[in-house]
């Protein structure tokens, strides 16, 4: 085992040219997902048992057992991602999607992760939060040579502690992360009963700046992003997490955007039980309804889904629950415009007065927009327009949901007399 490990590590350090044909042929085939919707992973049939996470609008990478090694294969490459119906983005990712597949292992597993670089520039993979040998940390130039274009490197390490982690490039990272390269890495406790929950959701927080009418993100943007996304999806493209009433739920979130995100859940209070540093002692937890996920950090929150209903689940920065919007535009609220409308129509036949009463109108009107551009506010619920976008979805709690049932149960029927009403 040691000799093989040394051989492979040495090969990696020397570049893929040094990897023999035999070892290349042993690389497991890279797996590809079926699309941008959530793919609930099957229960593991090889390796140590665990309860897989459900990655919102994502999937978990299959693995191959090779002796005591659990082998994965990531392919870094340009991908096309549907951000929400009506918009496709040209991103970089892994195995056909951005984010890449969630890698799941169990405390004590030895993982061997092959990374093939099909990008046009060198890359590396950093295993964020993992305790591993320095040479496996994935920082280009510091802990390893870059993975050249067209080459395959291998990372090998033991999963020494359970928790919530992620992976991303540490090579030209501003570009590569702005383009969508990232993925979750979940390490389950060796004892499946430890930290056991009924439903375990996970997603990464990211952001893109894609000019209206374009499809490739700007890689030089630092603050003015216009797509605030979870797993490279925005409302109404983010799948709804569901739970049976009374089930214990965990939601793991990692932030690889450039700003913090106060993530807020309605109808429940939760506790942060895990960060990318490890599990939080019970005595150190406190109840919250919003937890700020800082840049480059992860938070797992847990709660019992006690209350039936359709509960908004979103970032509390209100501009993060909107689609693309103009910056520095005139505020038309309360400004008289009607008297100028006819003259405007003479100049611009399609002109329509906008923003007179606030921006809520946007959620109800369907105005023609530039190609491949999402509306600033959209979506509808049982009571009308939702007028949302970005980092917003609905957490649905229902009675009698089957344990592996993740289908959207539709809108909640509120008991008679419990809806806010006109008086």
């Amino acid at each position, binding site marked *: 085992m040691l000799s093989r490990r040394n051989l492979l590590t040495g090969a990696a350090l020397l570049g893929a040219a040094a990897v023999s044909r035999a070892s290349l042929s042993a690389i497991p085939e890279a797996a590809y997902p079926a699309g941008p919707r959530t793919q609930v992973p099957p229960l593991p049939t090889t390796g140590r048992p665990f309860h897989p996470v459900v990655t919102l609008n994502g999937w978990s990478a299959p693995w191959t057992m090779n002796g005591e090694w659990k082998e994965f294969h990531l392919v870094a490459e340009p991908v096309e991602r549907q951000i929400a119906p009506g918009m496709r983005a040209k991103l970089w990712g892994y195995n056909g999607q951005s984010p890449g597949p969630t890698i799941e292992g169990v405390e004590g597993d030895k993982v061997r992760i092959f990374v093939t670089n099909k990008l046009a520039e060198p890359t590396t993979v950093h295993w964020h939060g993992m305790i591993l040998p320095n040479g496996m940390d994935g920082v280009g130039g510091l802990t390893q040579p870059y993975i050249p274009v067209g080459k395959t490197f291998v990372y090998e390490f033991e999963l020494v502690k359970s928790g919530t982690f992620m992976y991303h490039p540490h090579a030209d990272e501003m570009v590569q992360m702005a383009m969508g390269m990232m993925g979750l890495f979940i390490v389950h406790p060796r004892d499946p009963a430890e930290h056991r929950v009924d439903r375990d959701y996970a997603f990464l927080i990211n952001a893109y700046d894609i000019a209206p*009418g374009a499809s490739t993100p700007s890689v030089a943007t630092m603050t003015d992003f216009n797509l605030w996304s979870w797993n490279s999806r925005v409302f109404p493209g983010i799948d709804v997490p569901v739970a049976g009433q009374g089930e214990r739920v965990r939601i793991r979130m990692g932030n690889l955007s450039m700003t913090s995100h106060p993530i807020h859940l309605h109808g429940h209070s939760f506790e942060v039980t895990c960060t990318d540093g490890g599990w939080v002692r019970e005595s150190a937890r406190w109840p919250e309804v919003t937890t700020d996920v800082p840049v480059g950090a992860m938070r797992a929150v847990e709660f019992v889904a006690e209350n039936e209903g359709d509960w908004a689940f979103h970032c509390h920065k209100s501009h993060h629950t909107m689609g693309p919007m103009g910056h520095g535009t*005139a505020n038309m609220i309360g400004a008289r415009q009607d008297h100028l409308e006819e003259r405007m129509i*003479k100049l*611009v036949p399609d002109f329509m007065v*906008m923003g007179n009463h606030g921006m809520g109108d946007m959620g109800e009107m369907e105005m023609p927009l*530039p190609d491949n551009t999402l509306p600033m506010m959209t979506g509808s619920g049982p009571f009308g327009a939702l007028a949302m976008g970005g980092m917003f979805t609905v957490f649905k709690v229902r009675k009698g949901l089957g344990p592996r049932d993740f289908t959207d149960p539709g809108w909640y029927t509120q008991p008679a007399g419990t809806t806010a009403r006109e008086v």
Partner: protein
Amino acid sequence: MRRHAIILGFALCLTGIAPAHALTADDAVRIALRKHIAPTGPIHDAAEPDVAAAMTEFVEDVRGAWFRAVAARQALALLDEVRETLDLSAEFAQSLRDAGNLSALDLMRHQVLQAETTAGLAVLRADLQIEQERLAHLVGMALSDLGLPDKLADVPPSPAAAPPTASLPPEAQWSVRTAHLKYLAAHERARAYAATIVPLRRKITEETTLRFNGMLVDIFALLADVREQASASLTAIEAERDFWLAENALRYAEVVSHEPQAAPVLAPGARSGAAGGGH
């Protein structure tokens, strides 16, 4: 000298004063010649070299005035559009100011832009007015009776081939060559505006309207693009006018440099009918 007689003879053999159709360049020449030359003496005076040369120049001048007048008529409507975008910007700004959404400083920025541009437009407007009145003066009609066409003829997709000059004396070769080069440049510019720049400006306004719909840009950005589009159309008209003026100048250069029989200015069915006639 005989060529001048041809010019005059052709011009005067045309009949009728008030055309039923819009006034063409040839109409204008015919009417102007009747007004200014016929009453001054018998036709055979045109055979005198000085008179003939002056007449040829007069024909070129009237045709030029016609192109300028038609272009001016088109341009005036666009000036109104440019001005309207500025008026609207200032009025929207006032609405925003009234609602407390705009500072006095920003309102003044809109107002000063409107005032400065409007002031500049006043001079331009007078120039365009003068262009039309000059033609009216040349043909001896009231401006309102001119009956000019709505627009100049489209610039042909391909420029005319270089005129043969080998048989001409060096001076004449040079003037025809120069006129042809100017004609080619004017053609290229006018075609660029008609085929590329104006359509692009129109498309840009359409795209900006879509961004306005999405609240990605505001009313001022939309009006700015409408203004840019109107300005481009204005420049396109100027370029079109300059093309026809260059065409006119080229013809003039050809006529004055050729042997009498070779190229009468107003031969029926010649270039004047197909190009620049304005019908």
